[in-house]
C-alpha cells in the first residue's frame, strides 16, 4: 500500500517537473474552457433559456466548464501513454519492482496534476466575469479533490481506449468522440430535467453528471443534499476505471 502511494507520488512529481520545463500545453488547453465561460456563458445567460434554479447562468456552468476542461486534459493524457508505448518507457517501467496496477494508477493520477493547473488558470477568468463562488476554503479544497480524483478516472478511460488504438491519430478522433457525449449528456451546461426523457436516463449513468454536481455544490450552490451520492459514484467510477485500465494494460504492452 505504501509503495503504491509512493509510486503515485513519484508519477505526480514527474508531471510537475515536466510542467516546470514547459507549460505551453496547459495554456493552450485553457483557451477553450475560457471561451465557454466568457463567450458562451454570458450569451446563453442573457437569453435566459435555461432554468438554473435562480443562480446566474455563468455561475451555473462554471463547475461544468472546469470539469469539461479537466476531462479533456485527462482523456488526452492517454496520448502520453500511447507515446510511451511507442517509445520504450512503458517497457522500462514494467521491468521495475513496482506492481503493474501501481504503474497504471500512478500514471492515471498524474493527470490530476495537470487538471489542477487548469483550474488555477480558469478560475481568475470566472472571477473576472463576475462568477460568485462560495468563499469557503474547505469547500474549495473539496472541489479540487473531486477534480483531482475524477481526472484519475478519466485518464483510466483513456488508458483503456489507448489499449485498443494503435496510433495517435486514431486516438485523437476517439478522444473527441468520448468527451463530447459525456459533456452534453451531463448537468454541465443545463439541468438534467430539461433533457428529453431518454437522454435524462442516459445522463443518470454518466459519471460526469455526479462529478459536476459535487463541484457545483462545493463551489457555487452550497446545496449538499446529493454530495454523498456524488462522492460514492466518483469512488465507484475510479475503482472501475482503474481495474479496467490495469486489465487492458496487458494489451498495451504486448
Amino acid at each position: 500500500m505504501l509503495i503504491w502511494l509512493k509510486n503515485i507520488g513519484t508519477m505526480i512529481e514527474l508531471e510537475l517537473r515536466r510542467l516546470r520545463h514547459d507549460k505551453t500545453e496547459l495554456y493552450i488547453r485553457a483557451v477553450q474552457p475560457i471561451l465557454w465561460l466568457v463567450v458562451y456563458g454570458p450569451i446563453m445567460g442573457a437569453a435566459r433559456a435555461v432554468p438554473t434554479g435562480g443562480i446566474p447562468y455563468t455561475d451555473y456552468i462554471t463547475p461544468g466548464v472546469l470539469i469539461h476542461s479537466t476531462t479533456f486534459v485527462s482523456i488526452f493524457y492517454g496520448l502520453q501513454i500511447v507515446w510511451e508505448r511507442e517509445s520504450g518507457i512503458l517497457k522500462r517501467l514494467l521491468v521495475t519492482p513496482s506492481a503493474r496496477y501501481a504503474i497504471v494508477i500512478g500514471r492515471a493520477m498524474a493527470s490530476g496534476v495537470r487538471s489542477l493547473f487548469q483550474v488555477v488558470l480558469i478560475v481568475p477568468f470566472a472571477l473576472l466575469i463576475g462568477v460568485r463562488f462560495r468563499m469557503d476554503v474547505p469547500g474549495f479544497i473539496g472541489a479540487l479533490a473531486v477534480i483531482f480524483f475524477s481526472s484519475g478516472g478519466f485518464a483510466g478511460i483513456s488508458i483503456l481506449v489507448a489499449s485498443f488504438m494503435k496510433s495517435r491519430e486514431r486516438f485523437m478522433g476517439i478522444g473527441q468522440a468520448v468527451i463530447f457525449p459525456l459533456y452534453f449528456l451531463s448537468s454541465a451546461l443545463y439541468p438534467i430535467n430539461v433533457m428529453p426523457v431518454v437522454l435524462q436516463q442516459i445522463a443518470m449513468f454518466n459519471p460526469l453528471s455526479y462529478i459536476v454536481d459535487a463541484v457545483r455544490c462545493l463551489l457555487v450552490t452550497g446545496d449538499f443534499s446529493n454530495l454523498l451520492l456524488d462522492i460514492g459514484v466518483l469512488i465507484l467510477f475510479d475503482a472501475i476505471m482503474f481495474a479496467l485500465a490495469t486489465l487492458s494494460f496487458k494489451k498495451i504492452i504486448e
Partner: protein
Amino acid sequence: MVELAVEAHDITKVFKGGVRALDGLSIQVEAGKVFAMLGPNGSGKTTLMRILTTQFKATSGTASVFGLDVVREGKEIRELISYVPQEMSVWTDITGYENLLIFSKIYGIPSSQRKKMIEDALEEMNLTEFADKIVKIYSGGMIRRLEIASALLIKPHLLFLDEPTIGLDPAARKTVWDKVLAFKKEVGMTVFFNTHYMDEADAYADQITIISKGKQVANGGPDALKASVGAETITVALACPEPGDGVVGSLKGLDGVGDIVVNEGTINIHVKAADRAIPGVIDVLRSNGVVINKISTSMPSLDDVFLKYAGTRLESTTSIKDIKQTRKRIGGG
C-alpha cells in the same frame, strides 16, 4: 557447478494474429558472463528478452532468471535485473538528473543514498556535465548512456540490453561498451544483450547464441563458432548464373575444402588454407565454364557462421520498421 543467470527451455511465443516469434528456443547463460543473442531483426530476440524480463508470458516453455521462475516470481526477478529496451526509454522533456531521480524513486532507493547513487551513475557514464540539461538536446549516444545509467542505478545482478548501440556512430558505440564493461568489472554483473551487429557480439561476448526465425541455429564462444565454419573462406563472385550442383560437388572433392555455401551469385568455400586451395578452385570453376568476376579470401566472421547455419546473410532481412526505428533514434527521437 556453474551458476546460471538465465535458463530458458523450449520457449515458444505466438502473438495474436498467429505470428510465431519464438519456436522452441532453449538457452543457458552463465552468471558473470557477457552473453549475446545475435540474429537479424525480427528473429525473436526482443520477444525472448521481454519474456525473460517478465513483461509478458511465453505461449509455452519455461524460463528462469537466477533460478526464479519468470511467471511466478516476477517481482523477485525485477529486483535483481535492469533492462534497457531498444527504443528510447527516458523522458526527453526533463533533465538527465531528473530522469535518474524519478527512476531512483520508482526503484525505491532510500532518499539518504539517492543523491550519491545518481551522481555516481552520471559520473560513470560521463554525463555529469550535462546532468542539468534537458534530455531533448542530448545526442543519441548520450541518451543511450543516460538510459544505461538509469539501469545501473540499482547495481543489478543482470543487465539486459536490447540492441544497445543501434543507430549510434562507431565512436559512441565504443564509449557505450567501454562504460558497460567497466561497470561489469566493478560489480561483477551478468550482461545479456541482443544485437544484429556481428562485430559487437564478436568483440564483447563470452558466449553467443545465433537465432533465426525464432530458433537457435548455433551456440558457443565467438572463436569456437568461427572455427566451426572452417579456418578460412574463399569468396568467388560469379559473372555468370549460379553454378550447377556438379560444380559444387567437384569443389567439395578438392583437398582441404569444407562447407560450400552458394548465395546470390557468390560461392563461399570454407577451406583449411586459402592459399593452397585457390589454384584447385580456379581449375574446377574454369573447367566447368564458370566465369569468375572476382576472388577474395578472408578469415571467417560471425556472418559466415550465420550464413552457414541460417542459410542467409544477417543484413538481408532488415524490415522497414527497423529502418524507421533506427532513423528515429539517429534523429534524436
